[in-house]
């Protein structure tokens, strides 16, 4: 099998997750090449053909220019599949490639299953196996799903370029509000949509204070304004690794798990015993948090 990996550059540096593309290729025992909009001064350690375009000319956020670059590399390399990360860069670029190639795309691959690709369904509660029906396929792999392969060697660089005109104009980046650093907290008690309302967040706060920990949140809780944006845990929030993580009314979508799966002990409180948080929970308490949280807080305070 021949794979063309699409490397990813953010802030002028190859992202760490790019090595996961190599890890995925290694699992398939594939022959690999890579295409990258980057800089000749910071080449990835990689043994194989590297189709390299100049990032400065292409722009980091011009998906149409990147599409033309990758299509050019596909044309030259004739791979069986092109592989991207299922990241904001990859999920945006992949269907553009699939449309141009009139090919299958498999999104967010988390595993391999007898020649097919395993993906998540129903917000992470279920899984299914997808098989391309076309000879060529576009694949995006879920960040964190495949162990990074150590990257070594020096690439055989082939310079490519694409017309830099883009229908999408980049105006600038907005940095997240910070101010609350959850990355060093030993205990985090997080509120999910299951808390049901802004006033109920008090139950979560009370437990966090009884445990001497910080309050975290899932994305919908932050979007609803029940807690500050800076408390969001997940792929578009903070990554945390406390000794104890308590997930209150959080279903456990993959983007949330991405931010907390490095936690020591995970306690989840959920009315749904099949919620996908069960895939990482060391202890799942099947209960209504409105009853259970005050009981646990009281028990802690009585010690």
């Amino acid at each position, binding site marked *: 099998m021949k794979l063309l990996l699409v490397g990813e550059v*953010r802030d002028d540096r190859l992202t760490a997750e790019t090595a996961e593309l190599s890890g995925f290729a290694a699992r398939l025992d594939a022959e690999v090449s890579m295409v990258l909009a980057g800089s000749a001064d910071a080449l990835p350690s990689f043994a194989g053909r590297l189709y390299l375009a100049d990032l400065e000319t292409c722009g980091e*956020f011009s998906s149409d220019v990147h599409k033309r670059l990758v299509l050019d590399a596909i044309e030259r390399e004739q791979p069986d599949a092109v592989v991207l990360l299922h*990241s904001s860069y990859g999920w945006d670029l992949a269907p553009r490639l*699939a449309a141009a190639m009139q090919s299958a795309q498999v999104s967010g691959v988390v595993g391999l299953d007898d020649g097919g690709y395993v993906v998540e369904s129903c917000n992470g509660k279920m899984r299914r196996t997808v098989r391309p029906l076309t000879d060529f396929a576009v694949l995006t792999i879920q960040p964190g799903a495949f162990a990074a392969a150590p990257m070594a060697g020096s690439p055989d660089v082939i310079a490519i370029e694409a017309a830099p005109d883009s229908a999408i104009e980049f105006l600038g980046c*907005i940095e997240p509000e910070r101010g609350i650093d959850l990355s060093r907290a030993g205990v985090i008690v997080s509120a999910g949509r299951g808390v049901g309302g802004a006033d109920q967040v008090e139950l979560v706060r009370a437990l966090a204070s009884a445990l001497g920990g910080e309050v975290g949140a899932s994305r919908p809780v932050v979007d609803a304004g029940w807690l500050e944006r800076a408390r969001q845990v997940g792929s578009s929030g903070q990554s945390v690794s406390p000794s104890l993580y308590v997930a209150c009314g959080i279903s456990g979508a993959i983007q949330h798990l991405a931010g907390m799966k490095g936690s020591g002990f995970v306690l989840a409180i959920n009315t749904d015993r099949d919620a996908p948080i*069960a*895939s990482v929970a060391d202890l799942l308490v099947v209960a209504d948090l409105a009853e*259970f949280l005050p009981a646990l807080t009281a*028990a802690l305070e009585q*010690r």
Partner: protein
Amino acid sequence: MNILVCIKQVPDMEGRFEPNEAGSWFDEVGLAWRMNEYDAFAVEEAVRLKERLGGEARVTALCVGPARVVETLRKALSMGCDDAVHIDDPEAPERDPWQIASMIVGFAAGRGFELVFTGMQSEDRSSAQVGLLVAERLGVTCATGITAFEWRDGAITVEREIEGGRSCTLRLKAPALLTCQQGLNSPRYPTLPNIMKSKRAKLTVLTPESVGLEPPKASSGNFRPHERNAAGVILDGDAVTLAAQVLEILETRTAVLGKGGVR
């Protein structure tokens, strides 16, 4: 100005999912249905724009799916969409993104939609492909995962989320397709008169063949639960007993509760 919103109906994710007989997808028995969360942001944004433009705009909601999706189209109408189009396809739940996109393209091509809003992905199949495939095949510019939207005479400014809580600001021109991410807006609750009105509205019903359904590019099967943490413990019962059990487990399995009190 014509605006199109593409919506999907999905089951409530707290429901119990059992594989169907073929093991290819879930059995629909016993599930409750609602609008895909990401699509509700798309409907809301389209209706807000229409309201701002005051009368010059018309919003069409489009849904591909079996008979049950009529409910979700009526919801879109009650939120302020003007027209509803149902591509009546009993097999839609198991079609691949390419096929769904082929039908939307078949409907939208030549109808002069200046803007198309979709959700960034569905909650059940989560492929995040349909919006982009439609845009590419219609030949319109596309920005994905938007969390802010501004329109000024055909010039569009969006915020697009990237990793780690950062966003970037992008500018593009109509015609364009935008896929909507959580946080874009808070979808409204329809008023009772609007709900009543939507119940009487006439829907346009089309067949998959009439809008150019194409063959699939991928197959999907072996639908199964996500494995639990094998070492995980599950407890249920009354709150007070549970609290005592949990406390004991935290004391033995973690170091966060120092002896003689909370650290």
